[in-house]
């Protein structure tokens, strides 16, 4: 059996993750990272309300997609950026560290989301 490259698999995750990040991440940063600490929408971020909002099954699935796929997007881009910036040795280790980091992040996300 020929040895097949795993490259298309990681590239697909990169492409889907990049699309998820492009559409969803800016508004989330603006809301949770800027509007919230500025105190503009304090009631909207009350504990009970946020817990109820994110505990809905659709929200959990949404958050899993929104957290895990951009991590795979990062892993793919960061892997090749490190090589482009001169890390020529240890290509295999770089790939394992990057994709491994994304896999661990996705597992942690799943563990947190099932506890909500």
């Amino acid at each position, binding site marked *: 059996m020929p040895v097949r490259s795993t490259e298309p698999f990681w590239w697909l995750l990169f492409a889907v993750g990049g699309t998820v*990040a*492009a*559409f969803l991440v800016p508004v989330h940063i603006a*809301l949770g990272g800027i509007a919230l600490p500025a105190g503009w929408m304090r009631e909207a971020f009350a504990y009970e309300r946020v817990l109820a909002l*994110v505990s809905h099954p659709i929200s959990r699935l949404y958050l899993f997609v929104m957290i895990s796929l951009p991590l795979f997007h990062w892993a793919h881009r960061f892997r090749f950026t490190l090589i482009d910036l*001169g890390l020529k040795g240890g290509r295999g280790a770089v790939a394992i560290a990057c994709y491994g980091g994304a896999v661990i992040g996705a597992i942690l996300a799943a563990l947190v989301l099932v506890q909500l």
Partner: protein
Amino acid sequence: MTPYHRPVPFAWWLGRRVYTLFVVRELTSVFIAAYVVLLLRLLHTLTLGREAYEAYLRSLAAPGMVVFHVVALAAAVYHSVTWFGLSPKAMVIRVGQKQAPAGIIVGANYLAWIAVSAIIAWLVLRG
């Protein structure tokens, strides 16, 4: 025999604007990943209870966190703009014999981005 590789200076990507913008575009993914990790941290504090959650919200007001989020927002928007800019190359849409013009595909992405962002903002902030 090992082939000779001409050494590349580390700062090669600072020499030309297009190279710099390319590396900046690739590195936006670092800020996006850091942000989703912080979002996961927020969700984790929710599972720990009200005290942990409210302490985390207070920590978001620290100057370092605010600076991070402002830079991360700029990075994320740059990612979106460059990603949508590439969309006509990534998805070629044919209408009969003709190819849909690039401008229409890019424009449709921007419209969808605005609509999706507005829906999320409404869901998070309503009530």
